């Protein structure tokens, strides 16, 4: 019982050695005929805590947050839109395989190892309609992206530990790319 009071501290100390992070290794964003095409590779290094939780049957929701900015010269950039894509990694005990479920859009894959599942979950290839935003080549646009584990999707008892334990803080920094207009560039 006494140890319970120090659980967050113990968790923090034991997980410091196995620190891992999510890193956005590459990515491109293009605007083609009113559609946004995003390709990115996310290196999702799950730490011991997250891996152990997945192996214990707790699904881990990985959220990808995307923001589209309109560049401005003298003031801060204007945020035009924001999207969120969720991917869930879970363990299927009977088959012994790791399932990657893309919630938006719906996709279901299973992998033999967790690292394969993480790699698969880190492959982003998205294509969606943003014609409503009416982007023009007169302006410049940036696309920002970050990826992080969604603690609020964890079971309630685990949330506090996740918030208090550094090894659970796997989220990446914001990565920003220029939104290309291949057609316009081709014309030029």
């Amino acid at each position, binding site marked *: *019982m006494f140890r*319970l009071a120090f659980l967050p501290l113990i968790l923090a100390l034991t997980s410091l050695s196995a620190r891992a992070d999510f890193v956005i290794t590459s990515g491109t964003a293009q605007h083609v005929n009113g559609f946004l095409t995003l390709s990115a590779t996310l290196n999702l290094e799950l730490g011991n805590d997250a891996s152990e939780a997945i192996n214990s*049957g707790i699904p881990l929701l990985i959220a990808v947050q995307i923001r589209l900015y309109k560049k401005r010269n003298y003031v801060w950039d204007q945020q035009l839109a924001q999207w969120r894509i969720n991917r869930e990694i879970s363990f299927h005990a*009977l*088959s012994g395989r790791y399932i990657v479920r893309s919630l938006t859009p719906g996709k279901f894959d299973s992998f*033999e190892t967790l690292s394969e599942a993480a790699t698969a979950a880190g492959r982003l290839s998205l294509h969606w309609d943003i014609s409503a935003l009416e982007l023009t080549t007169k302006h410049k646009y940036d696309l920002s992206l970050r990826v992080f584990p969604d603690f609020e999707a964890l079971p*309630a008892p685990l949330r506090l530990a996740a918030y208090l334990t550094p090894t659970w803080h796997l989220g990446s920094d914001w990565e920003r790319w220029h939104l290309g207009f291949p057609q316009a560039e081709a014309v030029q």
Partner: protein
Amino acid sequence: MIKPVHKLVSPASAAILCVLLLAASFLLTITTQLGALFGGYYTALLIVNVIGIVLLSGFILAALIRLWREFKERTLGSRLTFRFLMTSILLAALPLIVMYYFAVQFLSKGIDSWFDVRIEQALDDALLLGRSSIEAIKTDLIEEVERHALTLSSVTDQLDIVRLLDELREAGQYSEMSLYSINGGIIASSSADALTLLPDAPDASVWSKVRQGQRFSALEPQPSGLRLRVVIPVYGVRISDALRALQILQPMPIRYSQLGESVQLASAEYDKLQYLRGPLKFSFVLTLGLVSLMTLLMAIWIGIFFARRMFAPLRELAEGTRAVAQGNYETQLPVTSTDELGVLVASFNDMTSQINRVQTQVKTSQRETENQRAYLETVLSHLSSGVLSFDAELNLRTYNNAAEQILNVSFASLKNTSTGHLVDRLEWTEPLLGLVTKLEQSERTELQEEIQVFAASGRKTLICRATKLSQDQGLVLVFDDATELIRAQRDAAWGEVARRLAHEIKNPLTPIALSAERIRHKYLHKLEGDNKETLDRATRTIAQQVDAMKEMVNAFSSYAQPVKMQFTLFDLNQLVRDVVELHRADKTPQKKSVFEFNLTLDDDLPIINADPNRLRQVLNNLIINARDAQGAGEKTSLTIESRHRQAENEIELRFIDAGPGFEPGMIERVFEPYATSKEKGTGLGLAIVRRIVDEHTGLVRVSNVASGGAKVLIRLPVNRASDLVDNVCVGRATGSN
């Protein structure tokens, strides 16, 4: 303006806060359970609870600091409030801590009891059984796929392969059967789902195995259930034939899938619970701790609120009592309750009302008494009669200004002094105070006598009346100074005598003198020898005696008749010099030149407004008096001094002779007519001097000089008010030794 925290938080808002915090605690308790309805708000509720606890702690801390400050400052009621609060906290905290301890123990053991080795083993066995069953199916499938691969190894024609795949798939009831080149390219495929355009190709890890000549088989979970995937390398008949791979996808039977999923879910849920055992305990303990802490804080808060409310009447009562002790009898306290404290406060209000009423009456009586006393003192102070009052023990109680003025004594330091002590201090008051003793010892209630006292200022004639006060409260002595009155009466009597004497004597003197002159003129030259000498001596004697009698009568007239004063401005020094010069020139045989004048005159003497003829008479009388006071032929002197008393604006004249001085007992009577020790003279000289000085509202005083001789002192005002010019004032002549 910023309000203090204890004023900012009203009881209503505190109650609302408590209710909200209780609700938050309740929701937090619910969300702590796995899969609860409000599970998504767990973190938010946790933060709300922590903020609530911090807020509540802040309020309580502020209230406790305020209470502690009052306790240190010994504010009334703070000790009781503090004691009550400490007791409340103790009563609330002790059971809460005990309950918290046992609840944590119970929770911990309860959570541990969820996990049983046998259940875990059963679930593992079930999972193993499921896997074994699936493994058996998979093994059968692999054997089938190997047979199919052998069949396909000799078939190279594309159409034959497609046809063969269709046949084999239908025969084996597979969902999909595909043949791939070793590079992953699709050679042929057959699917049960006609809508499937592309086969579900194996991923890279599968291909790496196949390229190494290994078989791949796996049970794959799918949204619709479980599926078996088997990939087998297909070798050609000829060595040159390219390596190919046959993949068969076969869904597990529904029954198998359902049972397998059920076992899998149960096992997964158990594993999850086992993993969450620690965090779950911590979460429960944390929630329980937060709720317990919040409950304790609420109890303290409520304790503070009720302690203040409960002891507010006592505090007000204590403050009211202190106010009453300090003399504020108008204190009224608000009656806020109908309980015993309310009755106590109401009784206190009644008590202060009654005290205030009585106090007001007492003050009114005191004020009336003070007014009476002030009135009496005013009357007494304005009385010309002296008043002394004595208590039953004959101690001096009160006196008035007139008593001090008449007796020329300050009674301020003699108040509450007994008559015996007064007589010891002021021996000359014995006749006056003896009257008090006499009345006190007699049965009479009133005594009236005329007495004489010899005060420092001279002999006084007092008309006294002593009266006993009712109810044995002492006695009062009233006396009037009749000295001046008696003297005035005596002066008036003497004046009348002088006037009658002058009238009766002066009239026959002229015929006597004329008759004597006629006899002398007619018979002197006719007589011879002794007869002539006798007649001559007789007629001369008659003439001389008539002259003497005339002189005496004129002196009587001067004394008796009021003279019209003629005030003019003149130099008094010059008048003194003139008179002295006249006396120096007087060389009559009996007045020889052995009498010397010493003049010490003030050069700054102002011009005086007075009657010079009357003052000349004063100077003459005093010089003659001084001259007559010495024996014939004796050498003596008279010193005359003048000076200006600026403070009083008076001129002072001093006459100091070198004679024998006044005889004892004469000083008091020296200004009375015929009060003289000389063999000759009318005895009116000094009486006339005093009368003239009185007419000038001046002062004359006589005394003996220690070195021998007499001294006469005269003070005259420099300016005379016009309305007093014609009046003859009562003189202030006094005598002293």
